[in-house]
């Protein structure tokens, strides 16, 4: 009875500790997920492989995490589970790829990815231990962290929006300018044509 309870607890903890998504790894080729992360953000990832056909031993996979400039942040082969943690130093698309070690055999594989960035990656257990808070106070601390994260996100969105507004306004003024210049070039070209042809016919004594 106690073992069953322990197993159930572990299952609940494992399934519920991060709200993780399940992906299907194709038999050949790889499965990649990307995320746009900006600078100086803590990223924590955890992945587990499960064989849909309940094969034993579980077929292994390889995984790789690449930064936007091409640096490999995590690379592991022949594993059924793994985790990685890093702080982003570049802003851009981070790519995580999984592929089967033995393509063709091994049946259908599913990988459970638990990917947390920013405030969600914060280790609340260590904060609770250090400051000796627990229960309701810890929950309220977490909510406070969530609110601060919301505010930071809003400021980030505001900055991005103002950059985009700059680009839009430049495009707007350029469209106007270039259309006027285009009209000018049209008139210029026709005047040049007329002048040249008049000179040509005058030389040919046709006019």
């Amino acid at each position: 009875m106690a073992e069953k309870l322990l197993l159930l607890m572990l299952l609940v903890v494992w399934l519920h500790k991060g709200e993780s998504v399940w992906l299907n790894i194709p038999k050949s080729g790889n499965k990649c997920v990307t995320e746009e992360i900006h600078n100086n953000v803590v990223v924590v990832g955890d992945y587990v492989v499960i064989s849909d056909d309940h094969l034993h031993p579980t077929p292994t996979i390889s995984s790789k995490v690449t930064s936007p400039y091409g640096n490999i942040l995590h690379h592991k082969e022949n594993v059924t589970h793994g985790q990685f943690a890093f702080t982003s130093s570049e802003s851009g698309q981070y790519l995580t790829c999984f592929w089967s070690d033995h393509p063709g055999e091994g049946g259908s594989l599913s990988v459970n990815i638990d990917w947390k960035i920013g405030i969600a990656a914060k280790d609340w257990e260590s904060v609770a231990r250090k400051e000796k808070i627990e229960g309701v106070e810890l929950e309220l601390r977490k909510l406070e962290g969530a609110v601060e994260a919301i505010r930071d996100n809003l400021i980030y969105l505001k900055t991005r929006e103002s950059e985009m507004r700059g680009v839009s306004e430049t495009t707007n003024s350029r469209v106007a300018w270039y259309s006027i210049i285009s009209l000018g070039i049209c008139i210029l070209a026709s005047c040049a044509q007329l002048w040249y042809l008049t000179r040509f016919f005058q030389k040919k004594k046709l006019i």
Partner: protein
Amino acid sequence: METTMKAYAFLGLIVLATFAVDVSALSVTVNDVECVYEYVLYEGDTVSGNFVVVDHDIFWSSDHPGIDFIVSSPGGNVVQTMKGTSGEKFEFKAPRSGMYQFCFHNPYSTPETVSFYIHVGHIPNEHDLAKDEHLDPVNVKIAELREALESVTAEQKYLKARDARHRHTNESTHKRVIFYTIAEYILLAVASGLQVVYIRRLFSKSVAYNRV
């Protein structure tokens, strides 16, 4: 007996502590069909989320009007369908617990990148309160507060993805303006030059002799 009580208490605490943990918005490339699965622990949980089609290197907007999104319950029934959309929010109450399937269908040949976010939220109700004596009513309020903040965060993620798509369109417009106007000027100059050359040839000596 005592160990069972302790185990239940530990379970209760863990279950409470891990409600509504966040996962960030991941992007996948959809070639034909891409499916993402999410496990719903309790029946009656609210599953909410959003998705935005981000990568858009198309020429006309009629090239790719959008993708289809289908949510299936563990029993195989379709819970939600959205067709031909380039970004949408969704929310539904899970009729039963189990593994739910969220599928993106791309009816066209150009691969698209979809940024999605799925959240399963659980608020302990009176039934859970009665079952576990370590859960008291303030935890219910805290869970509701957490879910409300979570919905704000989800909205922000949706806005961020939409902003990324808008930015992509903007930068594409910017580049197109410059490239196409310069190309237009060059073509105009070349066309008028060709016109002059042709007229010159019409009036050249060899042709004139044959006519006159």
